[in-house]
């Protein structure tokens, strides 16, 4: 509308030829670009969608503002020409950057949650390992205690066995001594018996001799 007003105002003071030249020049600069309008609508929709996203909407406000500013600059830029194309390109990147920054922030929050869970699980794992280590130490202590008790029992048994052996030896020695004594007694008894027998034989011989002597004396008398 400003252009039309200006054209009407200038047309009152300029001849038609000059006016035609100006109109052509202005029209050349005001090129209509339907594709750019479509691009801008798409970028606006994308930014609105990002803003309204319940998870991402508030995570990258700076990048979102930069993207909106870039889109606005594109709208304000003269369509067509290198500047318009370049500004549309930049706006596209700014919108993509806003999305990527919001997603990165969301992923950062997720990583923080996962790290917290990781710390909890590591603590549980450490506690479990410590409990297992304590149980292993206790098991080994009990095993050592059992082994020590077994060793003590075996030592006692060995000591008892040694003591029993010494006692048996003493008893055997005593038995041997008794047997020797008994043998000596038996020998003595046998000797005594032999001597008694010899004495008896001698007594019998003496008695016989006395009887024979007595008989001889009687014979002599008779004669």
């Amino acid at each position, binding site marked *: 509308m400003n252009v039309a007003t200006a054209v009407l105002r200038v047309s009152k003071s300029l*001849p038609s030829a*000059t006016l035609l030249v*100006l109109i052509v020049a202005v029209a050349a600069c005001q090129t209509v670009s339907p594709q750019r309008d479509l691009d801008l609508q798409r970028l606006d929709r994308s930014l609105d969608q990002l803003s309204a996203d319940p998870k991402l909407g508030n995570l990258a406000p700076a990048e979102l503002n930069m993207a909106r500013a870039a889109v606005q600059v594109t709208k304000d830029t003269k369509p067509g020409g290198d500047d318009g194309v370049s500004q549309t390109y930049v706006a596209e*990147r*700014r919108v993509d950057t806003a999305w990527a920054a919001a997603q*990165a922030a969301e992923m950062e929050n997720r*990583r923080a949650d996962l790290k917290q869970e*990781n710390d909890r*699980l590591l603590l549980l*794992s450490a506690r479990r390992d410590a409990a297992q280590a304590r149980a292993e130490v206790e098991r080994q202590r009990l095993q050592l205690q059992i082994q020590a008790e077994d060793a003590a029992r075996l030592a006692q048994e060995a000591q008892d066995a040694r003591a029993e052996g010494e006692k048996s030896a003493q008893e055997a020695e005593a038995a041997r001594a008794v047997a020797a004594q008994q043998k000596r007694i038996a020998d003595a008894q046998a000797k005594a018996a032999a001597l008694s027998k010899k004495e008896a034989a001698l007594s019998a011989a003496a008695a016989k001799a006395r009887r024979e002597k007595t008989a001889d004396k009687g014979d002599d008398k008779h004669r």
Partner: protein
Amino acid sequence: MRFAHNGRTTKPMTSEFMTSLAQKIHVSLLILAVLVSAGCGGPTRPPQDLLDSATRSLSDARAAGAQTYAPLELRFATERLDQAQAAISREDYAAAGRLARESEANGELATAKAKLGTERAASEALDQQNADLRRELGSDAGQETNR
């Protein structure tokens, strides 16, 4: 053809008209020239600020790991910065400015994508580690740690 009818002269207005027309054309052409030079005239010096920003953006992108997570955007940023330098060499500062802005935008996009890729990789690694720990811990994994 028009004539003056002011009663004091009967001289035709052709020469007067032509003089006025020529003046108007000259004025119009002057205005047009001013407009054209104002509208189409480019910068006369290199856009050093834009180039510096684009260079920083590119450096940030590389430091963020864009080579791994956003190689395409990093390549675009690099190419446009090179093109901007080439435009400066031929004293096309307007093109240099446009290309530097595009390079900066690509660099910042590459940085954002690299950060997203880095965070995603770290999250996936933690997720896997937590799954392994839960599997090792079995039913203990669900117990509270505030003992």
